[in-house]
């Protein structure tokens, strides 16, 4: 077993979407600072300080009251996200989770690569994080808590790695911490050096069990995080947001949670819905569609960004939710032996173009078995294999509606008289849909290939109403 601890030292503050990360900000719990950002630390504010002294140090300080419900929701989302690394994880505290990564080393090409990938992704989502790898969950937690970001792979190395940690990581109550101080134990080395039986007598049996668990002497059984059956995550925005750019930051956290959840369930989505709840309890639904089932974060994010950029907000947004209902089974593809095929770049590209231009703007072309030219060609949602007979003597461009040509002495004109090269080809009838609304109906046309003086090759026809231009032989 190997555990990766991810500890979020500024969790209480970073659960709030921040508009200005460089501005001093703190989160406050019972009138004392419980989390602060680097700008606040620079102003001289420290953890545990009273709010009044903090405000004295930085008058423009942004203050957030700690919201435990919001933290729980955020950690839940992070646990979903972590599903992309491992299906086995557990919550250690309200700001730390532990990932069991022994089983997925090879997939990520080594523990350090896995850890870097996790840290990078968390950084992009705006989380400060400390991490540590250790063979027992408690040891990993303590190392991360103390900011000692090392990797310990073997149990025998564990006591030496834990030795320099301060006793504060043990999380003991005030009386027992005092006792430890009185004994003269400054760090874990001192604690581990003491006889275990005596410690148990003075600090209680559970303390000795705690140490034994941390050192791997007795098993540490954990309840694994249970991934939800359906994905619906909702984030309350700290303040009403009226700019789509600011929504993107929050929405990205939702998308990464969705992607991890899909990875655990080995599923992909073709569609998910971003719900924007306004102050008046109305909702704006923003569907995100994909041309094939996917769980790729980058791909979902690109579509999300294009869709958000196109969105015009009619009111400010208070809640943001992401919902995915119909996840379909997506068997993981083996990594390609000779690199990626060039065609694999296509589906994400089509998704992005559609997100920006609309679904109808990107389409395929299909020939239909119809003799009337207007009905012989149609667009399809995507190019599809279909056997179609090639018709000779058909122009490559067609006008959406025939353009009347001027006529001089019965001869059609376009920059002077037309030179008729081939024809006539009679295309007629269509009585079966005559009279139907929007249908082409009966027609009787003689088509010619014509050349203008300037060398354009045209497809023209003549019917009872005169001469018309209908296409170009480009």
């Amino acid at each position, binding site marked *: 077993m190997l555990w990766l601890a991810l500890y979020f030292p500024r969790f209480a503050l970073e659960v709030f979407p921040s508009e200005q990360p460089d501005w001093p900000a703190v989160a406050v719990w019972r009138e004392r600072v419980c989390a602060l950002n680097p700008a606040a630390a620079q102003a001289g504010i420290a953890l545990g300080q009273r709010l009044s002294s903090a405000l004295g140090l930085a008058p423009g300080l942004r203050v957030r009251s700690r919201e435990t419900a919001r933290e729980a929701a955020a950690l839940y989302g992070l646990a979903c996200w972590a599903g992309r690394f491992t299906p086995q994880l557990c919550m250690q505290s309200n700001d730390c989770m532990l990932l069991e990564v022994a089983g997925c080393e090879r997939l990520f090409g080594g523990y350090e690569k896995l850890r870097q990938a996790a840290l990078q992704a968390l950084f992009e989502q705006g989380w400060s994080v400390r991490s540590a790898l250790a063979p027992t969950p408690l040891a990993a937690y303590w190392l991360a808590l103390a900011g000692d970001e090392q990797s310990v792979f073997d149990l025998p190395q564990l006591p030496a790695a834990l030795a320099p940690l301060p006793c504060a990581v043990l999380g003991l109550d005030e009386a027992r911490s005092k006792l430890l101080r009185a004994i003269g134990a400054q760090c874990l080395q001192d604690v581990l050096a003491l006889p275990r039986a005596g410690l148990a007598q003075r600090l209680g049996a559970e303390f000795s069990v705690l140490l034994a668990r941390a050192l791997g002497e007795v098993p540490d059984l954990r309840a694994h995080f249970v991934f939800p059956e359906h994905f619906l995550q909702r984030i309350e925005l700290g303040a009403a947001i009226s700019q789509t750019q600011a929504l993107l930051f929050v929405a990205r956290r939702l998308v990464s949670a969705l992607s991890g959840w899909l990875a655990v369930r080995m599923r992909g989505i073709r569609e998910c819905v971003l719900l924007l709840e306004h102050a008046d309890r109305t909702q704006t639904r923003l569907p995100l569609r994909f041309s094939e089932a996917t769980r790729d974060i980058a791909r979902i994010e690109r579509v999300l960004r294009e869709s958000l950029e196109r969105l015009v907000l009619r009111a400010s947004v208070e809640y943001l939710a992401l919902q995915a209902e119909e996840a379909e089974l997506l068997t993981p593809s083996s990594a390609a032996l000779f690199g990626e095929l060039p065609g694999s770049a296509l589906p994400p590209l089509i998704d992005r173009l559609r997100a920006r231009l609309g679904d109808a703007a990107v389409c*395929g072309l299909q020939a239909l078995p119809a003799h009337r030219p207007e009905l012989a060609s149609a667009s399809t949602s995507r190019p599809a294999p279909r056997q179609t007979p090639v018709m000779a003597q058909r122009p490559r461009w067609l006008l959406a509606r025939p353009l009347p040509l001027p006529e001089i002495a019965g001869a059609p004109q376009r920059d002077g008289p037309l030179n008729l090269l081939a024809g006539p080809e009679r295309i007629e009838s269509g009585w079966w849909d005559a009279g139907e609304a929007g249908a082409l109906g009966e027609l009787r046309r003689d088509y010619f290939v014509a050349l203008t003086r300037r060398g354009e090759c045209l497809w023209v026809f003549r019917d009872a109403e005169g001469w018309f231009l209908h296409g170009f032989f480009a």
Partner: protein
Amino acid sequence: MALPALQLSEVLSRQDIWRGDRLAVRDGAAESSGFDALDAELPGKGWSTGALTELLPTQTGVGELALLWPVLVRLSRSGWLALVAPPYLPFAPAWAELSLEHLWWVRGVSAQEAAWVTEQMLASGAFAAVLSWLPQVESAQMRRLQLAVEGRRSLAFVMRAPTAARSASPAPLRLQLAAAGAGALSVQILKRRGPPRPEPLLLAVPRPLRGMRLKAPHHAVAGPLFSTLRTGSFSV
């Protein structure tokens, strides 16, 4: 400190350097156009991949697609093609000569969007060929397109208005197309990596002249149905 002396022959053997009186050589980065006379005049003996090719037809319908048709038909068998903002509806019965299952069509977009789509498509490298109609494209956008396609294995054709011939362009190959009588296309090479060619190239492109029943058109006009029409003197 003196730089090591560089032999002129070494410099000239580089692929991105060519002598003004010879065509540039581009190994394996070109697709034959299907017209031998044209291939002989193009650097790399064909349409260059990874570079913009600018086509300036005087009008729609002079045979600009007929010029590209052989290479499009060939590439559509194995790769993706895209038409971006074509001026008219592509008529499927004619386009079915290509593999339609590999053809994407982007329609109903503004000039800005068309340039953006083209850039995205070229940058993705997913397409064997991208044909874009950008009549109002600006020089800065053309530079972006050229940068997007560089190093890709895509063919990039941009159709521009004939007036664009007067302004400079970052495309390494620029061709002006005009009709030269029925069945012939005059290709004027405005710019290429090689010596200038002042006289236009005349290519025989396939035109829809089969079944020329109409020698004297007034014999062939539809019968009694059009009795109201005057079937008089067409100028042929």
